[in-house]
């Protein structure tokens, strides 16, 4: 009997390794992330993307570089195992698929428009919008993890929740987009550099 109590106790402890934040802790985190986001003029980071599909033996791993320029220009450039980039700029989406270029007018595409603002806000970590998301705050050792569930019914057909992990400085270190099926895309950021001068060529169409 005592053994069972111990086991139960440890199970509870293990589950609680990620604990809910108090409201003052979440207010502090929001303030920290927002303050940090407003100082970002440019940002570059390496990223590794893990596409998890439950039925696969291994996640599909792709990687590349992310570049952001305030207020709303973002480029995701995949370099491995293929060369592919998407550039969000002036309400348009420019695609370069191994040299083959195309563009999409975001004005006509609500889904892409939402994706664009989400990407920018999540890069900056500033997506604490209670009108758009149900938000839950957790702490895990030094990091914080925030779960954003879209309130928009159309949007939640595609993405059930975004989980963003912030380090103790309030920088985004991991972004996970979870589909209604529980399959997910996880993006881990590395070598983040803020406010370095970026050549215009990076954001050329």
């Amino acid at each position, binding site marked *: 009997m005592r053994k069972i109590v111990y086991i139960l106790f440890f199970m509870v402890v293990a589950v609680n390794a990620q604990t809910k934040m108090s409201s003052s802790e979440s207010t502090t985190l929001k303030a920290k992330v927002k303050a940090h986001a407003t100082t970002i003029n440019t940002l570059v980071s390496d990223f590794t993307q893990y596409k998890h*599909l439950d039925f696969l033996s291994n996640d*599909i791993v792709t990687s590349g570089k992310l570049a952001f320029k305030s207020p709303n220009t973002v480029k995701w450039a995949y370099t491995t195992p293929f060369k592919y980039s*998407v550039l969000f700029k002036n309400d348009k989406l420019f695609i370069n698929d191994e040299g083959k270029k195309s563009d999409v007018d975001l004005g006509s595409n609500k889904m892409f428009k939402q994706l664009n603002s989400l990407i920018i806000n999540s890069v900056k970590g500033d997506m604490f919008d209670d009108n758009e998301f149900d938000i839950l705050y957790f702490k895990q050792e030094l990091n914080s993890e925030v779960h954003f569930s879209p309130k928009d019914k159309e949007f939640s057909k595609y993405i059930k929740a975004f989980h963003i992990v912030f380090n103790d400085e309030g920088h985004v270190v991991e972004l996970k987009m979870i589909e209604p099926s529980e399959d997910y895309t996880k993006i881990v950021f590395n070598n983040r550099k803020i406010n370095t001068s970026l050549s215009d060529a990076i954001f050329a169409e």
Partner: protein
Amino acid sequence: MRYLLSSFCLLFLACGSYPKKQNFQIEQSTTSSFHNPYFSNASKDYVYKANITVYDNNFSGIFIVKKLGDHNHRIVFTTEMGNKIFDFSFVNDTFKVNFIIEAMDKAILINILKKDFKVLVEEEMFIVKSYSLENTLIHETTLDGKSYFYYKTQQLDKIVRVGHGKEKVTFLFSEISDTIANQIKILHSNIKLDIILKSIN
């Protein structure tokens, strides 16, 4: 009248059998079935970079095939950023759409994709007739009432769906290493739909 006659002649020519038009020689087949090896290993994740061109729209992304058991395959297409575009299951003779984005949720398109992908994952084909052309062996088979011709030189390198003696869909397998086709092209001749797959794992 002459016009009518020549029309009949044309019609006759057009309806001539595919093997005849291709100058195939009939061969005595030694086996009754043919094995398509390209998606037959259940321990492997088949992952391709894909370009799908429908009329003048180009969709690129990641195309994933997984064998989950005998007569059980899952096919998923996502964007490069991981968003699912479609997710299909082929189990025995049933086909299920697990997910598809609204923009592609059209019965006609789904039906075409279903027919194309079924050819990719169908492993054992019953041989109706066999032919040869130079150093290529060609097996005629049927799948869901349609005629297919499987071309094999060293390996299976082409499948053609034929209707009324004409090529309707051509599947090309190239850069083959062992049992993996590193490049696959699915080309339609009666509609503007091409699917190009390049292995990335």
